[in-house]
């Protein structure tokens, strides 16, 4: 008989090993799924995990795409992880991401066709502020009226999507675009462009900011009192109040930070890889970042690796669709398995498995 036995302290070894084990289990289960679909599982796994990086035919396109996709995921997930650690559940990063892109783009376009070097920094600030402000709505409602931030932040995503559609077809529509929805191409305007900083790497300002966010979050959580208070509030709210933590301030701070970082991610996306405000500008980074945050164990370095891995499965998944005609839902199921297995094997961090042989009296 198998028994689960609670460990006196969480196992450090398993904390690191569970994500690796989850990836391996995902490969096995995913391989079985691909086999059931009549595809060669080994080839499918190879295309998803190996070819984007090392197959010369694809790598020149795919490798830069990894950073392009990982950048916003990491940036948003770092912000979310702070809140998740404190027990503040911002599920609406997607909305904050949209609002950051909208406000940043609106700020830049308001000055069109000025070529001032201050425009891009101004857009960055506008993007961060808009994401912050959008996240302040659930924060204020929660602290004043005890509403549930999960619901409020999630529903505001749909509000933001409507605003995006409205802006893309109205306020921010390209006057020279022959009536087509969508704004001007921001990445073709010198003063608003977020360029690829090193050719063929995918590295743009958003990726740089994401890396800085990883380092700052690491320092915050390990060296700073605020990080300690965030962890304390999440683990033992009553002890946190006893330690002098003001819960409302922490809620404001966590939601605000995650909103601002999501807003930044949106701004860098709209001025770089996406290039313009369009109806379908958002592609779900804000939601995927939730998976990335948990896949990375809410740890900054873990999130960095998880973001890169998630980006790899996206690129690899697209490749597999293209090369093996694996249907898109199967790829999504594959990505879902990753989170599923991670949460499932997570139990090993806090419990050990005992095999009990003797019978019970």
């Amino acid at each position: 008989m198998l028994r689960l036995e609670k460990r006196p302290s969480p196992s450090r070894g398993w904390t690191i090993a569970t994500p690796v084990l989850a990836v391996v289990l995902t490969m096995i289960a995913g391989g079985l799924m691909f086999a059931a679909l009549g595809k060669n599982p080994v080839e499918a796994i190879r295309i998803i995990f190996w070819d984007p990086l090392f197959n010369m035919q694809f790598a020149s396109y795919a490798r830069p795409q990894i950073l392009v996709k990982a950048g916003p995921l990491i940036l948003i997930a770092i912000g979310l992880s702070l809140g998740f650690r404190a027990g503040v559940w911002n599920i609406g990063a997607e909305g904050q991401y949209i609002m950051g892109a909208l406000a940043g783009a609106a700020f830049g376009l308001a000055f069109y066709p000025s070529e001032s070097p201050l425009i891009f920094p101004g857009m960055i600030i506008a993007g961060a502020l808009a994401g912050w402000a959008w996240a302040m709505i659930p924060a204020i409602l929660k602290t004043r009226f005890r509403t549930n931030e999960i619901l409020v932040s999630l529903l505001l995503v749909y509000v933001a999507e409507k605003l995006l559609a409205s802006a893309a077809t109205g306020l921010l529509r390209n006057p020279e675009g022959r009536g087509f929805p969508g704004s001007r191409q921001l990445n073709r305007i010198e003063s608003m462009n977020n360029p690829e900083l090193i050719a063929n790497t995918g590295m743009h300002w958003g990726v740089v900011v994401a890396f800085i966010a990883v380092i700052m979050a690491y320092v915050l959580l390990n060296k700073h009192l605020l990080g300690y208070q965030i962890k304390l509030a999440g683990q033992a709210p009553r002890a946190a109040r006893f330690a002098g933590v003001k819960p409302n301030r922490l809620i404001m701070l966590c939601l605000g930070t995650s909103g601002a970082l999501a807003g930044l991610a949106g701004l860098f996306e709209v001025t770089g890889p996406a290039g313009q405000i369009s109806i379908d500008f958002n592609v779900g980074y804000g939601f995927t970042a939730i998976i990335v945050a948990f896949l990375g164990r809410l740890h900054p370095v873990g999130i960095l690796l998880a973001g890169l891995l998630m980006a790899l499965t996206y690129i690899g998944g697209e490749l597999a669709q293209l090369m093996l005609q694996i249907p898109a839902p199967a790829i999504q199921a594959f990505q879902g398995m990753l989170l599923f297995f991670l949460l499932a094997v997570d139990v090993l961090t806090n419990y050990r498995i005992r095999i009990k042989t003797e019978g019970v009296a």
Partner: protein
Amino acid sequence: MSGPALLSIKGITKAYPGVVANSDVSFDIQPGTVHALLGENGAGKSTLVKMIYGLVRPDSGSMEMNGASYTPAEPRAARASGVAMVFQHFSLFEALNVAENISLGMENPPRQRDLAQQIREVSDAYGLPLDPDRLVGDLSAGERQRVEIVRCLLQDPKLLVMDEPTSVLTPQEVEILFRTLRTLRDEGTSILYISHKLEEIRVLCNEATILRLGKVVGECDPRDTSAAEMAEMMVGKSLATPARGNTQLGPVVLKVSGLSVDPATPFGTPLRHIGIELHAGEVLGIGGVAGNGQDELLATLSGETPTAPGSVMLNRQPIGNMGPNARRALGLLCAPEERLGHAAAPDMSLVENALLTARMRKGLDRSGFIDWKATRAFASEVIETYDVRTPGPDNAARSLSGGNLQKFVIGREIMQDPKVLVVNQPTWGVDASAAAAIRQAILDLAQSGAGVIVISQDLDELLEVADNFTALNEGRLSNVRATKGLTMETIGLMLGGAHDMRDPDAETIHVEA
């Protein structure tokens, strides 16, 4: 005692990973007796009764009821065999009334009206006043226990198991309970009575089995065994009572006046007109049955519940509106009752838990950046000074036993050199030797000139450490009395809410508990 035993326990062994809870335990419970099961926390009493009640299955050994094999697979089977149990922690719904609560625990509940009638009959017959229509949320702890007892009595049990029943009762309520238990015994019901309070076992029980570290270490007739002898069997060594020096009271260090706080939850306790004057060098004991405002009072002193500035004064400085850390900076430290989750974060290491309260006074951060080296040093110092048994400061708080964590929590506060220390239930769930160490540390602290408030439900503890005594009842404090010369009866009246006993000799007689 002769004749066939009601319940015979034969060589029961039960092991949990890392600990043997019961090892080859054997004893008999005769019909119509009150049998005490005596032992310290962790001696294996709870595991044993859980097996009798069918909640846990033994690894080996057997039980016999009236000569027939008795192997309850679940509590329902145990109840069918005539075993009923009153737990230490009640399982009642506060928003339902007494009759509804009782019917929830029954297999075939009769109609509400019939049940209410039965409840009245049983509570009358056994002298347990209880109104079936009252909401449980409005009942005192003693009354809630009566609900649990009546629930058991309705099953007409042959064996009634009671786990630490008096820990939540006033002395007067204890008397009522004992009268009921004696009536039951005289009617032929056996009672297995679990406790570590020796005096009450001596007056109530006529058989006792003593457990230590999961083994039976002795049996005796408590009526002619002294408390000291039983304590020695229980602990395995004789205990030093905490020594206190001469108390030289200094000036008032903490003054609470006109403090009233509304409850935070529907069934919470409001605080009403609390007034306290604590002198330097004084240990003030605040007695009271759980749920009379102890947590709320501690929260107003620790700063978790802010109040009007002038209602709490520390060294003549108004601090009522200050948060916990501002108060710590001024020297007011607290140790709450709930160790895991309030005084300490369960999954955090002892180093991180040292930071929890010691940051201000020990200077463990520089402009927000934590000095982990100094924090670790402080944690290690607490562990060493207070003999906290743990492999090291990096272990999670939850990995420590209750007593060891409590020593860490109390040590953490005392080693910050407080001007005033407030502790709630300092030795709850702590084994006897650790409890003695904690009480000694409290006395030493007061000796060094700090003022200490000890909130506790353990009256013996308060009589041992406190210079002055007051009781908390429904959020009100009684007048402060010197501990010396207090009788249990007076204390009982104070706990029961007789607030106006200015002159003890003249007025106690008129006050009803």
